[in-house]
């Protein structure tokens, strides 16, 4: 597995806990790399022919594919194992986190104190902020307690668990600091707008600030702000950024309505966040992006492609049905450009782009030959 940088806010796994995490990676590599392609094969060789024999036609959409595929014994078994691998993934990280939580909380407090004294990054929490339903109704990605549950005072557990969890989820392909998503969007900006030098950057739904840190490193003269609705991931984000020596300003806010001034930013971003929101929140978030952007400022949202053929669309929606990504399946039918226009952007300034970045990091196979979806707009 590619290297994952050590910093002060990580729990140290025991020998057996490490072996569990390693096993989860091996299991998932097999399930995703070796067995998942089999699902396409059984569709082609078994499910589609059988559907045709019964109905006298091919399945018309990904919902019909879903009804047929979920009855297929290979798909059932693969899917059930993929689901269990996600549960095992979280369990393998929760055990060492729980054991070392008191120390991790102390470390986070001490990092926050020194940030406070040296005037570097900041953290502002708002305990009165209501959690949106799309965030709290189910635990996104099956992380027990989600991003938001506080198990104790000054809790950072959700952030600790999420950081190592997404590292394992991608078998290390997210990079040594889970930096891949930030790197992709940064590569896009440099490719399409090479002369753009942002001064004030807002990262929406920043969670543990892994992408916020990428932007703060790339533009050291810019002020970087990260917002999220969940307190424990923000506490962790602040401590982690300070442990890495990167100043970021984190605050607990809902991207649908922030307290930033109109035109406060010249670059507003999100990294695979929009598909975790909702039909009604999406245009409100894009409207808020429009409001906080100054004239000429840029909005960039990185999104996951939803597939082209109906079997691809069905398979891309696996996470929606099996990994608590409730809204993500609706993204298949959503016109992101139309949503941006609802938010106040003008037609000629909005682009829904595809991007296959050429990044320097060799292990980032996931980013190569994979077309990311990017919603780009100029205010």
């Amino acid at each position, binding site marked *: 597995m590619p290297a994952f940088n050590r910093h002060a806010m990580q729990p140290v796994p025991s*020998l*057996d806990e490490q*072996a*569990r995490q*390693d*096993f*989860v990676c*091996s*299991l998932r590599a097999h399930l995703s790399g070796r067995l998942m392609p089999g699902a396409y094969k059984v569709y082609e060789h078994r499910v589609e022919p059988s559907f045709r024999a019964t109905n006298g036609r091919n399945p018309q959409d990904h919902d019909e594919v879903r009804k047929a595929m979920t009855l297929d014994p290979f798909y*059932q*078994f693969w*899917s*059930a*194992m993929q*689901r*269990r*691998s996600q*549960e*095992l993934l*979280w*369990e393998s990280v*929760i055990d060492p*986190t*729980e*054991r070392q*939580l*008191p120390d991790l909380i102390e470390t986070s407090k001490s990092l926050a104190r020194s940030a406070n004294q040296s005037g570097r990054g900041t953290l502002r929490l708002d305990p009165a902020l209501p959690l949106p339903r799309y965030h709290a*109704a*189910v*635990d996104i990605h*099956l*992380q*027990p*307690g*989600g991003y938001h*549950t506080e*198990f*104790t005072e000054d*809790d950072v*557990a959700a952030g600790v*668990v999420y950081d190592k969890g997404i590292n394992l989820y991608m078998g290390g392909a997210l990079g040594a600091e889970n930096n891949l998503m930030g790197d992709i969007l940064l590569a896009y900006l440099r490719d399409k707008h090479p002369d753009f030098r942002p001064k004030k950057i807002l990262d929406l739904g920043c969670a543990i600030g892994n992408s916020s840190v990428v932007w703060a490193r790339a533009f050291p003269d810019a002020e970087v702000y990260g917002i999220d609705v969940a307190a424990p991931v923000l506490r962790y984000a602040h401590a982690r950024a300070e442990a890495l020596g990167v100043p970021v300003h984190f605050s607990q806010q809902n991207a649908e309505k922030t307290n930033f001034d109109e035109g406060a930013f010249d670059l507003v971003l999100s990294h695979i966040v929009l598909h975790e929101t909702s039909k009604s929140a999406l245009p409100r978030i894009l409207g808020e992006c429009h409001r906080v952007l100054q004239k000429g400022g840029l909005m960039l949202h990185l999104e996951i492609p939803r597939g082209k053929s109906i079997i691809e669309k069905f398979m891309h929606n696996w996470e929606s*049905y*099996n990994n*608590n990504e*409730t809204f993500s399946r609706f993204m298949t039918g959503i016109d992101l450009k139309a949503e941006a226009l609802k938010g106040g952007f003008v037609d000629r300034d909005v682009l829904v782009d595809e991007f296959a970045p050429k990044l320097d990091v060799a292990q980032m196979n996931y980013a190569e030959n994979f077309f990311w979806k990017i919603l780009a707009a100029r205010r």
Partner: protein
Amino acid sequence: MSKPALPKSRLARVAKGKRPQYFSDPATDKLLSMTLTLMEELSVTRERLDSLERLLASKQVLAQAELESWAPSAEAALERAAARTAYVERMMRAMHAELEEITRRGTPASDIDPLDAVGS
């Protein structure tokens, strides 16, 4: 032997949100969950054994035959019993998850408390 101290804060082990049923018989779902956990734990055990045997060999502490004839002390036996209890707990997580789901407040199934349901 002192009992291992429980961590101050217990984190959740089960995600909120209905778990899909993959097979026509829900028992199959549980069996598969358990099988994968078992697969994981066997991998963990093999690695630990491998670490140990490599260490012992490199330090020239132990010949293979000694390992075969070894028996635990009373204290070691207690520690191993506690470890087995924790192991079984992990293996049975699919069952606990179902219990947690039906007893959690705010879900329709939580109206029935399984303890009250059987009467006193």
